[in-house]
């Protein structure tokens, strides 16, 4: 559409760089896989942010995705990574379709609060369910890919590569979606809902669809996290997990589909470095960074890269 649109080139370049770095630097793989997985959840949140909605409950779908993938492995013996990822994504999407009928009526802090309440309900359920390991959660069986074990030196690289490809596909799909009429409604809804209705589009329906996409991405991210970390617990549905996604989304900004992943990788690096050196002050640094971004870079860190004068 736009000859100057370099998103595809950027994403392909990012994929190649990520794969190369992963191949050369094995210790980087784990951190980056988790970061990309969480980046998927943040990517979904970014879609909601562009629509003017903040969900403090994406942890619900993140956790659902992880538990679906982990549960399939644990109770049914399914270990194929692709199946597990698809399952996590699907379960999250189905739940989001149902809850979306409800949430699509809410805006502003009410949307934030209701989504938070819903994720806390799941947290409360999981904490009390002995079969799923209560507060301890349970271990996820090592995944396989087409019969190959995704563990050991090579296997871990393949899991990392899978995460890269999943993130790439997610980002590309969402970028294409943003360029469809329905996708372009996001900014319109954020700016003036009433006029969108006058134009003949259903705001409710648009928000519902966006919510389902966002939640499917969160489920995908959760499943990927579960497979990578090898352990899942109810903490994933706690509101602080959702808060972390919001944090990364705000920090990264909504300027590009690559921003959530960049933000997520940065966040994980800062966290692991800061956690080693000053475990008691890293949140302080995060909070300060967030305040600075809200005040001076309302479009997030990505706006530094974006060309000046280009209106999002």
């Amino acid at each position, binding site marked *: 559409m736009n000859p100057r649109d370099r998103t595809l080139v950027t994403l392909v370049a990012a994929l190649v760089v990520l794969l190369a770095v992963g191949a050369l630097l094995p210790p980087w793989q784990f951190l980056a896989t988790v970061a990309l997985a969480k980046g998927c959840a943040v990517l979904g949140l970014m879609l909601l942010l562009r629509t003017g909605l903040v969900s403090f409950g994406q942890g619900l779908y993140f956790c659902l995705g992880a538990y679906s993938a982990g549960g399939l492995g644990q109770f049914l013996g399914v270990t194929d990574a692709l199946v597990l990822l698809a399952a996590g994504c699907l379960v999250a999407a189905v739940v989001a379709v149902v809850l979306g009928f409800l949430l699509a009526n809410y805006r*502003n802090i009410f949307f934030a609060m209701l989504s938070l*309440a819903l994720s806390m309900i799941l*947290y409360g359920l999981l904490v009390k369910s002995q079969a799923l390991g209560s507060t301890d959660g349970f271990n996820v069986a090592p995944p396989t890919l087409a019969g190959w074990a995704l563990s050991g030196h090579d296997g871990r690289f393949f899991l990392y590569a899978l995460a890269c490809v999943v993130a790439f596909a997610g980002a590309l799909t969402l970028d294409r979606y943003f360029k469809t009429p329905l996708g372009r409604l996001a900014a319109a809804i954020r700016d003036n809902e009433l006029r969108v209705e006058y134009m003949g589009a259903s705001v409710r329906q648009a928000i519902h669809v966006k919510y389902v996409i966002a939640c499917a991405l969160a489920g995908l991210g959760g499943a990927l996290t579960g497979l990578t970390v090898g352990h899942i617990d109810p903490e994933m549905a706690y509101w602080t997990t959702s808060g972390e996604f919001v944090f990364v989304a705000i920090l990264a900004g909504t300027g590009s589909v690559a921003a959530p992943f960049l933000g997520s990788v940065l966040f994980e690096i800062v966290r692991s470095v800061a956690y080693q050196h000053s475990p008691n002050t890293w949140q*302080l640094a995060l909070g300060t960074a*967030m305040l600075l971004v809200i005040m001076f870079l309302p479009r997030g860190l990505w706006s530094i890269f974006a060309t000046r004068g280009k209106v999002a």
Partner: protein
Amino acid sequence: MRELLPVVIDGAIYASWLFVVAIGLTLIYGVMKILNMAHGSLYALGAYAAASLGGAWFAGGHSPYASYAILVLAALIVGLIAGPLLERGLLRFMYGKDEIVLLLVTYAVFLILEDVIKLIWGVDPYFIAQPYGMLGNLDFAGLTYPVYSFVLIAVAIFIGIGIAWVLQRTRPGKLLLVVIHDREVSLAMGINVSLFYLTTFTAGAMLAAIGGALTAPTVSVVPGMGVEVIVLAFAVVVIGGLGSLPGAALGALIVGLVRSAAVHYLPQVELFSIYLVMALVLILRPKGLFAGFEARKI
């Protein structure tokens, strides 16, 4: 039926705690339209200050019965320092932004305060159990309750009536209602709105800290103690209706009774029963049971 009375008493005790913890949140939202996520951190700050100051008081060998005043004093100090610092130093630059941006700002403050607490008090737990144990127990309806719990109920009622009295019977309180009703017109009429904002936020911070200070004797004061309180307080004020004083009281009662009923009859659902009620209320009455005065907005 035999079990009903304990359920009600436990519910009332828990409700009074919730009310004290949540009232500052609804006050700040009602006046300033800020849903303060740092509320839980202010609660934790109050608890820590109370544990430190109270600990020093007992170590000094002073009269143990004055320790209750010390708890409250600690909370007032926290409120007086943190309230103006946050309002003047940060929030006043944010007025006029979206409610959701303000929510994110206070979320950042929450992150910062969580670590400030660790920097000041370290990560080891603090205990200040004397004020709790000192009052002894009371046999009531065949069960034994700590007297301290009944003190908490009295404090909650006192705070509730006190705030209602200030709002309805005093000049500053009435002016505050005017500010809530229409900020611009009150500015034009010569009301010092920014002073009211400062006072309200400080009062809200103090109330959060009092909640923490009064809880400190009943728990171990540890990092992260405010994290759960935030969502509980949210649940209470959302159920009652954001910014509504009777709403907060009703929300606290509902949550208190629901939780105590869950604990007595169906312990598995204890934790999520609260959020289930919150979600149900949001679904049926999105603005809460005591919806604010929305009509004035147009």
